[in-house]
């Protein structure tokens, strides 16, 4: 099956009607006769204008391109980083907006010598992806699911597990718990919120909004609320109210 496909593809003439988004490379089906040295080419007849499309290298995937960032780009890298990208992406998203320069041999040599330490923006963040992570965390409403029937005290590992369920792997030492100890089950906590502080790369600090949900099965189960993460809630700790007020809720 596959071999027949390859055969029909490579024979060329059966797939003449294929559209190709590239430079047409053609071939005369009937090449003209030879002419004298230094003389005029022979008179062309209609058959000399019958062309066949050559299955050519242009259809092939173009090789990746090297570019050098000349400034800090959020989520990509810092100035001086050499990226290897698809030519279209590199051209449209980096070279034309002026975020990068071509990775020509001269530019690469210059890049090795140059030092970008003086640029402040690089120092601000511990990694190019920090801003993205911070944005993700600051918009998060973390549901901490706790038991409705068995007594508990909120501990960092509860928060860690909740983070993992929300798609963030946060080590316990990076989580700063709220100043009070929270004990349960306590249904008055259900409609309250507080924040924990997460430290990324031991440098950047982000506040993450947390809400406790009491979990049970059967008749004890709490009724479900639609879009509960969009609704504003009361602060559990009065000192945190001002900060929580400023943090935006997901739309």
């Amino acid at each position, binding site marked *: 099956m596959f071999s027949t496909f390859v055969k029909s593809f490579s024979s060329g003439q059966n797939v*003449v009607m294929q559209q190709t988004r590239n430079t047409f490379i*053609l071939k005369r089906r009937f090449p003209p006769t030879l002419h004298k040295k230094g003389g005029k080419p022979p008179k062309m007849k209609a058959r000399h204008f019958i062309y066949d499309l050559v299955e050519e290298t242009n259809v092939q995937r173009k090789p990746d391109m090297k570019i050098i960032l000349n400034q800090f780009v959020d989520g990509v890298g810092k100035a001086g980083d050499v990226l290897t990208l698809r030519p279209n992406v590199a*051209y449209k998203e980096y070279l034309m907006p002026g975020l990068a320069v071509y990775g020509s041999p001269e530019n690469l040599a210059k890049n090795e010598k140059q030092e970008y330490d003086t640029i402040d923006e690089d120092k601000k963040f511990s990694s190019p992806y920090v801003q993205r992570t911070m944005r993700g965390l600051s918009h998060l409403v973390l549901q901490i699911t706790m038991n409705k029937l068995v007594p508990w005290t909120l501990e960092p590992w509860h928060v860690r597990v909740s983070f993992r369920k929300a798609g963030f792997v946060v080590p316990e030492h990076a989580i700063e718990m709220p100043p009070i100890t929270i004990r349960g089950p306590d249904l008055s906590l259900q409609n309250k919120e507080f924040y924990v502080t997460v430290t990324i790369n031991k440098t950047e600090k982000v506040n993450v909004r947390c809400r406790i949900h009491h979990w049970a099965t059967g008749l004890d189960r709490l009724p479900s609320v639609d879009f509960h993460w969009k609704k504003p809630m009361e602060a559990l700790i009065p000192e945190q109210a001002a900060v929580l007020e400023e943090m935006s809720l997901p739309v």
Partner: protein
Amino acid sequence: MASSRIQATLRQLSKTYKKKSRFDIGIASELPAAYKKFWREWKVLKPAAVHFVPQEGKWKRDELTGETLPVQNIPLPLKHPAELHEGIWGGEAVIKGFQKRDQLRRRVAHYWVPVLKRTVVRSEVLNTHLSVTVTERTIQLINDHYGFDHYLLKTPACDLVSMLALKLKKQILTELMNGCPRYANNPIKQKEIYEEYKTYLTSYTPEEIEWYGLSWYEALCKVAKQKEAANKPIPLKNVYRKNLLEKLKEAGIEGSHSSAEEMSNATSWLSKMNPFGKKDEA
């Protein structure tokens, strides 16, 4: 015997006779060498093979007979529509020809038209972004040359083909010749750009840059304009007046009121009249 003599004469004549080229007729004979150089680069030089794969080498051997045959690459004739000059197609053009889709079927006419798209290119020397119609090949070439300016400056006119590309090239060369005045507010950058591109200036003289990228008609207009400016006609009345005054001077007849200089400088009574003034003023 007479016929052979005629033949000999003809042969002799054909050696000395030179067919008139377009640079020998009319005002075109006054075109400078700078323009001829550009014309040669644009129209006479063979462009790179874009739409066919040229055969390598000078000779090849016939596999069946062992006969040695010369390699003669006859390029496919290309059509250059007017739209080509409004974009930068990177040497691509329209091909008119036939497709023979089946052995037992009549050939059908077909035009192979390049896929065009509008995109942005950035010129470092001109310090601008431009929106131009290009082909995928153009972008590829720009990337291979590490920049739009490098691509334009390195590629000969016969491969650029389009008028837009040639005009841009001329503008870039002029800009370089003047030392990148667009970067006047940033001398460090200005120097950097100039250092990067100055090697291209060595292959052109200022006159050649002036005559670069002109179409045939534009070049002729330019020559005509220069010619007109060079020999501007002097009104005969001025000449005659001057002659008369000189004659009078020679004859020793002094102007009773004014000297020759004053006469020639004196304004005409006509200019004193103001037809648009008030009645009592006139």
